[in-house]
């Protein structure tokens, strides 16, 4: 079996859902938010690692973070949104993959074709999660703005 990966369309293509179904968009968002969360985790580990350098090093790290101004809060807001989406969509995927929920049973295909795995139940699940995540993201934004004293 060929192991040549030269002919694969690659990472950018796998993250590009243009023209595809909403579940494919959901897949791309899940990957993207996962990468953001891993990045945040790395930064967070680095940040707490500074505690080992004593109070001075910790204060310097905090000062460096606060010097970013509103960008710090925007970053946290993006991380919060990523966590909400990745978690929410992750629950849908577990239901899909481990329990077969929203997939439908095997059917006899009748034209015009409409795969049940991408059917109404799946769409409702995807959009419910999207709406809940959006609401939580707005709430997180308001919470962060409140912390900044803007509202």
């Amino acid at each position, binding site marked *: 079996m060929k192991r*040549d990966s030269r002919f694969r369309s690659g990472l950018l*293509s796998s993250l590009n859902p243009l023209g595809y179904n909403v*579940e494919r968009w959901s897949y791309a968002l899940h990957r993207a938010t996962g990468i953001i969360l891993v990045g945040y985790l790395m930064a967070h580990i680095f940040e707490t690692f500074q505690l080992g350098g004593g109070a001075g090093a910790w204060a310097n790290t905090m000062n460096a973070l606060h010097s970013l101004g509103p960008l710090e809060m925007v970053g946290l807001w993006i991380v919060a949104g990523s966590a909400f989406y990745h978690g929410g969509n992750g629950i849908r995927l577990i239901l899909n993959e481990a329990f077969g929920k929203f997939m439908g049973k*095997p059917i*006899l295909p009748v034209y015009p074709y409409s795969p049940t795995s991408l059917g109404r139940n*799946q769409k409702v699940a995807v959009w419910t999660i999207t709406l809940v995540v959006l609401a939580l993201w707005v709430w997180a934004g308001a919470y962060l703005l409140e912390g900044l004293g803007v509202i």
Partner: protein
Amino acid sequence: MDKITLRITRSGGRKTTFVVRYRKGLTVLDALTEVREKQDSTLGYRHSCRMGICGSCGMTIEGLPRLACQTQVSSLDTETISIEPLHNMEVIKDLVTDILPFFDHHRSVKPYLIRNDVKERDHSEMEYRVLTKEVEKFLQFDYCIMCGLCYAACPTAALDPLYNGPQAIAQAYRYIADPRDEGWEKRIDLLDTSHGVWRCHMAGACSFVCPKDVDPAKAVQLARIEVLKKRILRKRGKEGSKPVPRPATAVAKEGVKAPPFDFGGARN
């Protein structure tokens, strides 16, 4: 719309454009045939049946993997049609891709009935009998024409050449779900790898592009559930406690009369 422009990505990535006269009912395959007959006889593309049965004319049309013979130009809603070879496969010439690695994946999951009794299998004196409700569990996945569109659309196959791919896993499940098959344990073990069912992340692109509604995404999830069940049984030390599929001969001996298969009025 009087004319359409085909923007074809050919060997080496060069793009050439051809203008074809539009007529009602024109498919992308018709347009390509007209180009090869009247404008450029060196254009390479593969086709055979022209009616969505053979699965030979898969190509990327307007960014999506589709069968050229089943794609009406009018349905694309554009006068300039972009045509590329299928993704995730090596290009042999122009729009012709090497589908052998794809077939290798298919072959690797043992897509055939496995019977423990070789004598019965090779010199059977009675037919395998399957009930309608049993057939319904796998018939949908049996309609696969192996066109490779699902494999070209799969974002996981875009990254992992060793991934079985939606087509192969769907075919593996088709035989796992078949009550006549006795090789389900071997097949489940083949799928229970980091390049098997666990690599799928349910993007659903395979089912979205499938021209026959085989719904590979559903089959992959059902296969994953079978793998999970086997893992749980193994952990509890109950491997083998799952009832083995009934031999067809036993069903016949029971005298169960299978009703004629009901196609639900979809086919005659």
